[in-house]
């Protein structure tokens, strides 16, 4: 059975999450502090971590790095809404996704499923990525949408590959700048205009994107 670790200092959150996660087939481990969370992660084969950012003994994002050196695991940050900067910092520190508190339980379970898939393909040898009817063949550098070929420039392809290999999870502006330009100091306006072109090619209505969603202030998320 795969293990899921909940690190949160609110006992009620553990109490309400444990039954539903167990019901979804997880072995649920819990920790109330950052230090305890790290110990549990080292002692077990944890696949997914739900990490609250406001812990009594440390800022949650400070242990993201240490958590990831223990096991190949996916981290979903649980944050209060309106903390865009905190979210971005946690994601840039290596977290895979975030969920706002109070969360909708169905949405949380969906995000956990995406994170589990990602944790499974830790060493990513999959040549083809697919999400939401989009198929991207890395070897042939070919992209199809619902079976139809889409012509992309090399940079558009790199950006889409980054998004599609994290399908369902948010990808920060910084990570996309790294993927497209190999340089995080590039003017984010370039990224914005490339995303606009990608939407022209992928979306039925680029001004109300359904596939390449925006998380304003954080990044982009490929629906999938």
């Amino acid at each position, binding site marked *: 059975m795969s293990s899921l670790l909940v690190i949160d200092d609110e006992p009620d959150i553990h109490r309400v999450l444990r039954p539903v996660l167990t019901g979804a087939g997880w072995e649920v481990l819990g920790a109330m502090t950052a230090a305890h969370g790290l110990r549990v992660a080292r002692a077990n084969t944890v696949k997914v971590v739900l990490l609250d950012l406001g812990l009594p003994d440390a800022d949650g994002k400070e242990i993201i790095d240490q958590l990831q050196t223990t096991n190949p695991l996916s981290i979903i940050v649980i944050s209060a809404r309106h903390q865009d900067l905190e979210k971005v910092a946690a994601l840039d520190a290596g977290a895979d996704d975030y969920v706002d508190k109070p969360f909708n339980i169905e949405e949380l379970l969906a995000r956990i499923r995406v994170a589990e898939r990602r944790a499974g393909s830790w060493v990513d040898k999959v040549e083809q990525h697919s999400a939401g009817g989009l198929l991207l063949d890395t070897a042939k550098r070919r992209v199809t949408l619902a079976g139809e070929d889409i012509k992309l420039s090399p940079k558009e392809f790199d950006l889409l590959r980054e998004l599609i290999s994290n399908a369902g999870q948010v990808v920060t502006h910084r990570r996309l700048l790294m993927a497209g330009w190999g340089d995080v100091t590039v003017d984010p306006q370039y990224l*914005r205009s490339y995303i606009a072109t990608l939407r022209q090619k992928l979306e039925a209505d680029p001004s109300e*994107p359904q596939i390449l969603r*925006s998380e304003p202030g954080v990044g982009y998320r490929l629906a999938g």
Partner: protein
Amino acid sequence: MRSAAADAAGRAALTDAAPASFASRPDTRAILSTPAPAAVRGDLVNGAILLACVTGGFVAHAHGRPVTAASSFVFAVVLVATRHGLKAGLLSAILASLVYNLLLSDPFLRFGLTSIDDLVPILAFNASAVACAYVAGRLKDQARASEEAQRRVESLLTFSQDLQTTTSLQDMIAAARQSAPGLEALELHLDNGRVISPEQEPTLRLLAAQLRNADCTSLPAENGSMVLCERFSDGLVVAIVPQEHATDAAAHLAIIALAAERWALTHRLVQADVFRQSEQFKTALLSSVSHDLRTPLAVISASAGSLLHYRESLSAEAQQDLLESIEQQSRRLDQLTDKLLSLGRIEGGLDQASMPTVDALEVLGEALVAVRQAAPTRKITKEYGLDHASVRAEPSLLHQIIANVLENAIIHTPKDTTVHVSVASQGGMLLLRVDDDGPGVGAMEAERIFQRFHQGAAALQHKRGSGLGLSIARGFARALGGDVTVVARPGGARGARFEISLPIEEESR
């Protein structure tokens, strides 16, 4: 030293130039187009004066009155020198000397200075010419200077009147660009980081930062230009001008700084007003919170209690119903908490300078996706005049502004009517308009709907909405240097238009 021709041209230029602006001084134009006729006319008049006086001199001489004869020559020289300056004066003095010496003084028709009586008139002619030309020249210079000064004052007056009617900093800069001569750059740098520039990209950021540290002391820039700086309570007015226009530009800058000060004061008055209302707000909040928070809490508590203690006696259907209402009411509580937190942030004041820039159209897109999910049958049309518009805002604030205004339109209009969303920019402001085909908003209601806890008749009937959405949208928009207003739809169409305006950092079409 001036030539008669240039003098005449200068006069013509002065009369021409009176109503003209600083930007296009017509001196050169006047010199090129009008000198010849004026000079010829001047020479003719001079000739006539000389002729008249010389004739007078002869007549006096013939009647044996040498003093009168000499005086009439002096009179001619004085007149010419006064009218046309040194060169013409000296010329006529020499002419007068020759004529006097040849024709009036002995020996007749021969040059010669035989007595002091021959020399004195010649000296008198020339000395009069020099003295008169000097005095006349100074008078003319003074007249010219005072006309120039008056012209500048008038231009500054017009400029300051223009500024009285501007409401945005952007318009002030535009007016200054029109009025002040030779401005190479002009920008407003607010202390909160906002920059108002006529260019797409502000060019004086570094300079403004230096000036801010150096107490706004004006300093010379490269290649003969000057950097000018004026402080007002919320920022700096910075300009680069060529040396020769520095005085004019400095006066303009002072006026802009005054106008910006007025703008800042108005803004602060609005904020003071908001603060004054905060006591009333707290009272209203307490009474509303007790009602709005307790209702969903009561439902949750009763449902959970029933399930916990009386599950056996409840049908499966009833149990499902109770569970659903727990989830539903929790969501309502969550939304209300969000709104109360937002009000708290508005009350506490927001620091726009520390916020990032976001693409408002991207936020609008996400808000529309969410609205369509919540009201899938509702018809929403769009018309975008822009591809992209960056504004300085926290994404979540911007989302609330847009989502609240959209939600308001959806809640307060019949389900079968259309909501029309359009995007435009005007005078540096992004305009997001939400038009509806509903009953419209009466003049009496137009301001009240932005007050906290105001609920429209429809909302009260359907028990939807918290009466906070528009108040939050306006509070946030104003904190971001914009506003939310309601106006009648153009062309007398039925319904209301809600307009969100926000200062644009960068746009593209």
